[in-house]
């Protein structure tokens, strides 16, 4: 799957989300848990704001000097015998990776969780080349087994499924015959995937932070699957978005400490694995061959613009976990593998306004995202900036907003128009009102009243009351 998930229009996706009550319950309880995990972890440190300032400093400096640090990284990877491919587009990345796999005569590819390989649609390219591709993150594997159901959260991709649904997927697709207990489901995955790991020729990973000074890639995981993928297969291919880099081990340490706290409230995840090149002479396990693929795919267009700081993102999903809009509409509504506030900023930048102009409006601008961000990205300001650009430069405001803005400007253009409009409102809407409430509104009100009531306009207008009082006082 590429960045885009599904072809349904935005409003349809949203109403699917709002109508899915299991998903909404799961999302709100997950949000609650993840958010309180983050807050507890921050409180335990005591000086979280200091950490955030450091995180921001590190990210800003690194992205401002991205060309330098990427060059240093690639030098150091090659010194250790690894290969580096710079891919400007998804196609270039997929072609290089497919060629490596073909040269190795690879048949079975195991992957650990990686958003960027989803973004470039690597699985499809590999499958076309005749490979079997196996996702090994538990959540992603569940989705893959369920005929490639798209992910709905960047940290917990199968958040929208309950354990009974997962049991049924395993039963229907893989002949699973045990209960829906999470432990039994996980044990089944362990056994199934253990066989795959042991047989795989190629391991593909993402990258949380590459370390420029030593040519290292680090992976942050809990399940141990990324360690499997980088321990057993003979060839390792790591794919990274070009901004996923830090200068030295010291900055890696700081950002990992912040990532695990901001994402799940853990001090560290079970495994932080820092890999430098292929295995060294005399070592038994680890890959013989190591390839690092550095992907642009639209990111460089963001450099030098007012949106540059979105490249500081460390993919913790803290903003997603506090977003009131995400809470109600769920991850699939965003139509992108990057949901929530970060997705609403990033997706239109990578994929263009044509497909994603609604996303910056899927926000209340409450700024909870900005407050939650461990590296202080002003997310809500970026959303507002998007709206400005959509309206001013592109003239592409969503049609509903265009119409209501037109009506509003017509109605407020002159005192007499406003006078007439506000007098008419109670009459015009009176037909829809019952007990001073409108529950089945016309036109633009329909979206609102489908799920809640709208107060009917009062017959007594403020301006009339004001006039009347003034008259009475004047007496």
């Amino acid at each position, binding site marked *: 799957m590429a960045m885009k998930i599904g072809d349904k229009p935005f409003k349809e996706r949203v109403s699917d989300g709002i109508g899915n009550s299991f998903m909404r319950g799961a999302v709100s309880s997950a949000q609650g848990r993840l958010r309180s995990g983050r807050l507890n972890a921050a409180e335990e440190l005591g000086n979280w704001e200091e950490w955030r*300032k450091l995180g921001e400093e590190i990210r800003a400096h690194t992205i401002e000097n991205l060309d330098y640090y990427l060059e240093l990284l690639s030098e150091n990877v090659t010194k250790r015998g690894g290969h580096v*491919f*710079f891919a400007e587009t998804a196609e270039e990345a997929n072609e290089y990776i497919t060629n490596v796999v073909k040269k190795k005569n690879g048949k079975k590819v195991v992957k650990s969780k990686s958003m960027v390989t989803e973004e470039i649609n690597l699985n499809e390219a590999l499958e076309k080349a005749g490979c079997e591709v196996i996702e090994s993150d*538990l959540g992603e594997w569940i989705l893959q087994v369920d005929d490639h159901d798209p992910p709905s959260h960047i940290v917990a991709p199968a958040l929208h499924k309950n354990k009974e649904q997962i049991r049924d997927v395993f039963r229907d697709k893989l002949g699973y015959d045990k209960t829906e207990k999470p432990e039994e489901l996980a044990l089944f995955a362990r056994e199934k995937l253990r066989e795959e790991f042991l047989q795989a020729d190629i391991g593909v990973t993402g990258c949380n932070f590459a370390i420029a000074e030593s040519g290292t890639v680090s992976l942050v995981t809990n*399940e141990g699957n990324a360690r499997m993928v980088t321990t057993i297969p003979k060839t390792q291919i790591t794919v990274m978005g070009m901004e996923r880099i830090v200068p030295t081990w010291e900055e890696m340490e700081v950002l990992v400490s912040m990532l695990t706290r901001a994402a799940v409230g853990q001090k560290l995840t079970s495994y932080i694995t820092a890999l430098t090149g292929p295995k060294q002479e005399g*070592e038994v396990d680890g890959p013989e061959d190591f390839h690092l693929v550095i992907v642009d795919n639209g990111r460089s267009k963001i450099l030098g613009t007012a949106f540059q700081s979105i490249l500081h993102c460390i993919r913790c999903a803290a903003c997603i976990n506090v977003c009131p809009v995400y809470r109600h509409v769920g991850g699939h509504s965003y139509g992108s593998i990057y949901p929530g506030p970060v997705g609403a900023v990033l997706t239109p930048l990578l994929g263009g306004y044509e497909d994603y102009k609604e996303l910056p409006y899927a926000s209340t601008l409450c700024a909870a995202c900005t407050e939650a961000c461990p590296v202080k990205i002003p997310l809500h300001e970026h959303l507002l900036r998007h709206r400005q650009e959509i309206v001013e430069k592109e003239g592409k405001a969503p049609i509903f907003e265009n119409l209501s803005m037109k009506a509003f400007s017509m109605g407020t253009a002159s005192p007499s128009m406003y006078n007439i409009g506000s007098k008419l409102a109670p009459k015009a809407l009176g037909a829809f009102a019952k007990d001073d409430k409108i529950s089945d509104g016309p036109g633009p009100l329909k979206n609102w009243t489908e799920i809640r009531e709208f107060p009917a306009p009062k017959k007594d207008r403020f301006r009339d009351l004001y006039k009347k009082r003034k008259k009475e006082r004047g007496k």
Partner: protein
Amino acid sequence: MMGAGQVYNRNSFLDNLAKNLGRDRRRQVEKPAWNHNPQWDVLKDASPDELVEVLKQQCLRIHTDVHETVSAELPSLIPHLIKEYGGKSVVTWDDPRFDEYGLSGLTGELSGDEIAVHVWDCEVVEENLAFSATADVGITFSDATLAESGTVVLFSDKGKGRAVSLLPVIYFAIIPKSTIVPRMTQVAKQVHDKVEKGEPVPSCVNFISGPSNSADIEMNLIVGVHGPVQAVYIIVDDK
């Protein structure tokens, strides 16, 4: 020494980044001194005993059993624990510390109980993986230990295979007390200093905090997914 790797498309890619950043390519960048350094404040005045206490408390939270012992007792404690946790096959690193701490006789000691022991052997490549994949217990020493997060840090090397701490169902980490530092900051600095001196970084540095786990099913914590299902730390006074 292996040959250097290849690099493809670098110049056009990086030129484009510099252009979008509105300047020429940067060939030399001084990393600034950061204005904020809260990481160094964590547990900065803790004594070694206090660090042990912090480590033990954290292990309660990450579902990890902790045993404490003195070095004289270690050779009898390890076989005892292997049996207690029901281990029938054991794989260990080939690491001089096993000898130093009187653990080189494990194989003989356990053979009476029909417990098989495999010591990592870089001469027989496939056997190591095959044995580890079905082993009940994997045992390594910790190269550095982080009190704050309950983490053992393992530096890979010839005798120090990655699979020992990964494939078996139960993982034992022997933690010499002197390896315990406040947090990841100290170890990252140590590796950074190595790089500055031009010394090679291990091909794999693992920071391991307890057993593998997942919350991917309805956000319920499941302990034991692809890596070990159980983690056991044995803290030992130094020789």
